[in-house]
């Protein structure tokens, strides 16, 4: 079975362009952490660990041996997609980068950042319906049109698609579980409903890929790839579901019992 191929220079250039933001992200994060620690406010080390490991998993999906193999093998491509679009972004969100940023900036600049987050565009981009559409809708377009095969032909398309997969995955996670401060908050109930619908669309697309291989993908690879997408998606979404429910549980803590406790002391 012939695989889509490309010129020799394109993979390396694309790898450098795509990995640069993640490397910069790690460096800036650690720099900010050292800065705030020096100022006397200890930043939890586990957050740094989450940010670095999430960045690293995203990074190996766009550069290195895994990324190279994913050009020719759809199964590897799907593992890369799970890392770049789901697990990597989730771990990075749990690193609470915006909280760290606001802590390390001078007050005036921190205010400017929060103003940006309160803007209409931020409201739009953090709405779970919008992020779900960007995330799952983007994947539907990628795997059901000739975009998948085109992505291997044109470097700029390759870069845009990978950036989109990561950013859509990140925004999706941000819109579902609130780790960093987020001005436009949605109810737990509406987020849960949209999360279930997004998860369903992801699962249905996985099965669709299983029996309708994307253009240029051999049937066997599509079958295994579809199953990797299905079960891998379930695994990562389980973490999101548990965190969302735990936040819900915490937020609905009954007040009466606290009063009773206080009275009994």
């Amino acid at each position, binding site marked *: 079975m012939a695989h889509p191929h490309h010129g020799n220079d394109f993979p390396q250039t694309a790898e450098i362009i795509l990995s640069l933001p993640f490397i910069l992200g790690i460096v800036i994060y650690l720099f900010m952490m050292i800065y705030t620690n020096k100022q006397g406010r200890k930043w939890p080390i586990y957050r740094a660990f989450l940010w670095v490991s999430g960045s690293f998993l995203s990074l190996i999906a766009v550069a290195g041996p895994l990324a190279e193999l994913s050009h020719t093998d759809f199964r590897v491509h799907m593992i890369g997609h799970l890392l770049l679009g789901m697990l990597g972004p989730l771990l990075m969100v749990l690193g609470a980068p915006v909280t760290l940023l606001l802590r390390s900036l001078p007050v005036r600049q921190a205010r400017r950042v929060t103003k940006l987050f309160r803007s209409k565009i931020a409201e739009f981009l953090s709405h779970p319906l919008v992020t779900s559409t960007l995330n799952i809708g983007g994947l539907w377009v990628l795997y059901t049109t000739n975009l998948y095969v085109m992505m291997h032909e044109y470097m700029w398309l390759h870069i845009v698609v990978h950036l989109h997969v990561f950013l859509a995955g990140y925004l999706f996670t941000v819109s579902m579980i609130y780790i960093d401060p987020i001005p436009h908050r949605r109810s737990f109930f509406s987020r849960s409903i949209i999360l279930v619908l997004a998860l369903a669309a992801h699962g*249905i697309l996985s099965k*669709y890929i299983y029996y309708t291989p994307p253009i240029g993908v051999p049937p066997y690879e599509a079958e295994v790839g579809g199953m990797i997408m299905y079960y891998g998606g379930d695994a990562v979404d389980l973490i999101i579901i548990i965190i969302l*429910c735990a936040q819900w549980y915490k937020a609905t803590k009954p007040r009466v019992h606290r009063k009773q406790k206080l009275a009994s002391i």
Partner: protein
Amino acid sequence: MEISGKEQAYKIQYASRNLWSGVLFGLGMVAFLDEALFHQILGWHHFYDKSTTEIGLLSDGLFHAFSWFATVGSLFMVADLRRRNGFWLKRWYGGVLLGAGGFNLYDGIVHHKILKVHQIRYDTDNLFLYDVVWNSIAAVILIIGIIVTLKTRHMLKRSNS
């Protein structure tokens, strides 16, 4: 005496939440067992069947996602009921049986037979027998669930009067 009376009042107050938490957990548990036992361990169910209808794919996808969320959500509901001293075990497992039996029956009739998502087993000549056993077990679980739930309803009525 007074404490148990208070707990009784909490149980009554959260009666429907106990039931719903049970239904959601029953549904989620059955979907999980279906996946673990029949898809993975026994390998009877297939990941995809060529005769699946489009609506079958949609229904299967929605139920799968919903059951995944329901398993986790219902257990957090149990934790919530417990911290409110309102957990009512009998009403809860009545709900579990309702959810488990109801979903199994839906799976066995709508998913397997009408929407043809997949069959119970492929390497057999007597699929009909499998279908009968599957749906009978589901119906029995559902009926026990209805009986248990009705019994707790009697308790509800008694305490109201």
